[in-house]
Structures are given as structure tokens and as C-alpha cells.
């Protein structure tokens, strides 16, 4: 089975977020980056599938060379090879178009994306990718089993789960549940050494439209200080919730 895992390179969840250039660009100064957590669940699932059924796991990233440490980490965890499309990933359709070109060229059986990236939370790429390839697509996927050319998938829906069947090849947008947090793999030293010699192919971007551009970023307002009200002063609490917080 040939599996492609699409990975994003995102700020660590503890990073302090700031913007530069008149709030039009993310300030990466002093920020450490990680594999997008949704993608890491997908990568781990891909390794499980490979170990069960055989095959290969390729990781693909659309982005500049500064993301290569993240790609090397994916290789150290166990992916067999990697492709980086050398372009700024600023627009969902553009990224999906790049990934579609890679899938068309190499014919994967399963394409695993995270359901969204935790930086810009666009949530567009997996669905667009499936549409561009005219393949089955399951988003918010929390379960995947493959038997021959058939797949059984689970996805979260309001108040429960939906079980689906689909035939390969397919695209999914995964999340926690595909594997559990305790299943995530920490690269070991041999893996890190082996990653040195694994193939990381850099490809130029194919022509594709960028349908959106960032006009400006805005940070949420800082939280207002806490106002303490005596426990027996319910009237004042209700008054403030109504007139100041305006939540009732």
C-alpha cells in the first residue's frame, strides 16, 4: 500500500503569537515549529497501516526550506521518503493544487491529511484535494481500517460516530482518534541517523491560482481584569452580567 501523509509545519502550541509588517505577516522570530498535531496522528496511523499491510509511507509538505527540520522529524519517526514543494503555502486552493499534482504523479492508495492545521485553521486543503482528484473524502476521520481495496472509516458527527465504507484510493482529514496520543512516536536516535540518508525530494511548484490573500491579522483583545463580587450580592452579579458583560 502506498500512503501519502500531507504535513504542515506549524508553531508549537506554547509559542507566543505576534505579527509584523503592519499585521500582515506572522512573526516567526523566536518561534519553534512542530508537525501539525492533526497530521501527526495521521502519520502515526500511516505507520501502523504500513506495519500491518506492508508498503511505503511518503510525507509531503508545501513550504519553504525552513520546514525541512519538521520533514526530517517525520522521516526519523519512520516515514520512508519525503517530498517538499518549494512554495509559500499561503492559500488553501494553491496548496491543494500542489498536493494534487504530487498524488497524480505517484498514485497513492491512501492520502492522509490532518483535518486542519492548527496555525491558520483553514480546514480547506483535504476537501479541495479530494475534489481536485475526484476521490472519496472523509473529514474529521477518527478510524480507518483497510482490507484489500476497501476501507472502513469512522468520523465524528454531532452526538456520535458515523461508519462509512469507501474504496481506495481515498483522501481523509484525520484527527485524534485515528490513533491515540499515547500512540504518537518519539523519534529514537537510530531513526534520526537513518533520516539523514532518506530521500527528501524538492520540487518546484506547479502553476495554480491563489484565490485568497491575507489583508490583516488581528489578535484577540486581552482579557479584562476579574471583578470580584461578594457571594451574597446576586443582584449586582446579574446587573453586571447584563449591563457590562452583556451576556444575559
Amino acid at each position: 500500500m502506498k500512503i501519502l501523509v500531507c504535513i504542515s509545519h506549524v508553531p508549537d502550541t506554547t509559542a507566543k503569537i505576534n505579527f509584523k509588517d503592519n499585521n500582515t505577516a506572522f512573526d516567526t522570530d523566536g518561534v519553534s515549529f512542530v508537525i501539525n498535531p492533526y497530521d501527526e496522528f495521521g502519520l502515526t496511523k500511516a505507520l501502523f497501516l504500513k506495519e500491518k499491510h506492508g508498503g511505503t509511507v511518503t510525507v509531503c509538505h508545501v513550504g519553504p526550506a525552513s520546514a525541512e527540520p519538521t520533514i526530517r522529524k517525520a522521516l526519523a519517526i519512520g516515514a520512508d521518503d519525503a517530498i517538499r514543494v518549494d512554495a509559500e503555502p499561503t492559500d488553501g486552493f494553491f496548496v491543494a493544487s500542489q498536493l494534487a499534482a504530487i498524488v497524480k504523479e505517484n498514485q497513492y492508495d491512501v492520502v492522509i491529511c490532518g483535518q486542519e492545521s492548527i496555525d491558520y485553521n483553514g480546514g480547506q486543503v483535504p476537501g479541495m484535494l479530494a475534489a481536485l482528484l475526484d476521490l472519496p473524502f472523509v473529514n474529521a476521520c477518527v478510524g480507518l481500517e483497510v482490507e484489500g481495496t476497501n476501507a472502513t472509516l469512522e468520523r465524528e458527527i454531532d452526538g456520535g460516530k458515523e461508519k462509512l465504507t469507501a474504496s481506495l484510493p481515498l483522501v481523509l482529514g484525520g484527527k485524534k482518534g485515528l490513533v491515540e496520543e499515547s500512540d504518537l512516536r518519539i523519534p529514537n536516535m537510530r531513526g534520526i541517523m537513518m533520516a539523514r540518508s532518506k530521500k527528501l525530494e524538492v520540487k518546484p511548484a506547479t502553476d495554480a491560482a491563489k484565490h485568497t490573500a491575507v489583508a490583516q491579522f488581528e489578535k484577540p483583545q486581552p482579557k479584562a481584569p476579574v471583578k470580584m463580587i461578594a457571594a451574597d450580592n446576586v443582584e449586582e452579579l446579574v446587573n453586571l452580567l447584563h449591563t457590562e458583560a452583556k451576556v444575559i
Partner: protein
Amino acid sequence: MATDQFQSPDYYLLDELLTEEHKLVREATRDWVKKEVSPIIEEYAQKATFPRHIVKGLAEVGAFGPYIPQEYGGAGLDQISYGLMMQEIERGDSGVRSTCSVQSSLVMYPIFAYGSEEQRKKYLPKLASGEMLGSFGLTEPDFGSNPSGMVTNFKDMGDHYLLNGAKLWISNSPYCDVAVVWAKNEEGRIHGLIVERGMEGFSTPETHNKWSLRASATGELVFDNVKVPKDNLLPNKSGLGAPLGCLDSARYGIAWGAIGAAMDCYDTALRYSKERIQFGKPIASFQLQQKKLAEMITEITKAQLLTWRLGVLKNEGRATTAQISMAKRNNVAMALDVAREARQMLGGMGITGEYPIMRHMMNLESVVTYEGTHDIHLLITGMDITGISAFK
């Protein structure tokens, strides 16, 4: 125990001196420590029990012989990677780091550097995989700083050697499967022998009631007419320089490890001082507390620079014994000072197992003594710069 919130200080942007691979090695080891060591270490230290189950995990992450070539089961990484791993593991606990130092630098290293090809193939892959745990016997009850006076000895009996004597203060000894033991032959020349558990007359009694390295097992190696096969002698180096070569490697790892312990104490005290309110404001706003924190980060930064440079020299094969002594001595003393100051900043909370500081401080009392005491390392520097030995 509370969630491990550790964030490493990098005041002089020293990460820019590291390769991406170094950073990945450090991150992987840190993640492993947060997952496998931090949640359990306090309980094992309180119970004074060796968390034997983590030997397998240490092997899986690659903490045993990371710089040993891959063909013998190691990862073939460089010396800075090894140092960073020791830093992160000691950030968790000096006892766990001690287990790794012994396995890597005092057991795998001499077998790799002084052993025959057969010995390398027989032992190194099993030591790297954690299937075997090793210990190292140099120190004796009456010979600590003066190892050349050792009395442990072996006689050539024709088809085997007969080993007699005892070694003391041996990390891993109660659980070890093999021991690299240094003993004198009939001419008084020091040689290394690989002694295996199960050899008749070989026992490993545990040393109890330690107030330090409580999550690491320490004991003796006792040899009562032990028949050691001749194939178990390390053939490629003899004399005191052989065990001292192992100590260079281990001390180098300790120099990095001590920074890890200091970082954990600093990071804990910094976070606590911003949260702890006295006189209506965080204690971090008081000058005396800021003095402590500022001095801690200054000393940690100096130690980081010293040790990074030592790593570069070691990668180039140019690090001298005296340079390694300087870094071991400086960094362990620095870590001990940081631990003591940090402990004070936490007040009464600092003495409890809710925080790692007192455990680090007690551990470091061993680290400042073993692998060459604080004073002996000073005299090694003194001898190096004057050309005159003050301890012989």
C-alpha cells in the same frame, strides 16, 4: 506529580550553534523524559527504588551508546548529540542519567575502544538494546581518588584468570548482567576484564540508605576466586590510562548532564517566583529573588558555552582530560549552587517532592563526588597549568 512544564533557557541563543539534527536529538530526548521519567521519578526516588522498567525505554530512545557505530547497535551520533541527551536525561534525574553514563561510557565505550572484535559483537548490541545492563568497577573501599593503588587482582591459571577483590560505589551493580572490572595482573599492570553475572564467586550486594541518587541502584562488586575466561580480558589497552579514558567520556557526559539539572531548578524557581504572592505581589518582583535568578541564568549560560565548545573539541578528537575535568567540576558545582538557591526561593515547598529541586540537590551531592571529586578535578587543572602534580 504535577505536569512537567519545563522550558529550557537559551539566553545567548546557543541553539544557533547547534545543527537541526542536534535539536531533534534534544527534542526527542526531552519528549521521552517528559513522557517516561517525569511522571514516575519522584515516587521511585521517595521509595529509593530503581525504576528498572525504564531500561527498555532508554534503549529504545537510543540512550545507550548513542555515539557507538550502528554496526554494534549504537546510533553513530556525534559527541554534542550525546551531551544533549545526557543534559535532557539529567534534567529528569541524575540517577537515570547515571545509568546511561555507566552503560554508554563505562561499559560500551571500553568494550568498543579496548575490546576485541568478538567482544564487541558479543556484548555491544545487547548493551545497546538494554538486553544487558552493565556496570564498571574501578573504585575500591580504600582506593577512590587514588585508583592506581587498587588491590583487586587476577592470576593467570593457564586456561583462565582467577579474580579476587572488591569494588565499591558501583552504579547499576545490583542489576548488572556484565561488569567491566579493572584489576592488576601478577606484574601489577591494570587490565580490564568482562565479568558476567552467574560466574561462581561473583556477587553484587546493594548499598542501602542513600540520601542521593535514590532512583539509581548502587552496590558492590565482590570477586571471591572468580574464574574469568581468558577471552574476557580487554586486549587492546592496559594501564591506568585505560579506565581513565572511559572516565573522560563519562565526565564529558556529566558536564552536560549537570546543566540539565541546573536548568530544571532554574526553570522551576522562575515559574514559582512569578506565581507566588507575598506582600501583595509576586516574589519575582523582589530584588533578592531577582539576584538569585539572574545569577542562576548567568552561570547556566556560561556553562552552556563552556560545554558546547568542549563538545566541538571532542568531536574533533582534541578535548583533553584536563579540559573535561574543568567542565565537569565547574558545571556540577554550578548546578549544586543553582539547586540550593532555587530551593530557598521555593521556601518550604522547596523541600517537598511536589517540586524536583531537593531531589536534584541531593543527587548532585553524589555527582560532585563521583567520577573524580570536585577537589581532584581542581588539582588536575592545577597540574595541567603548572606541570606539577599536587596529589602524588
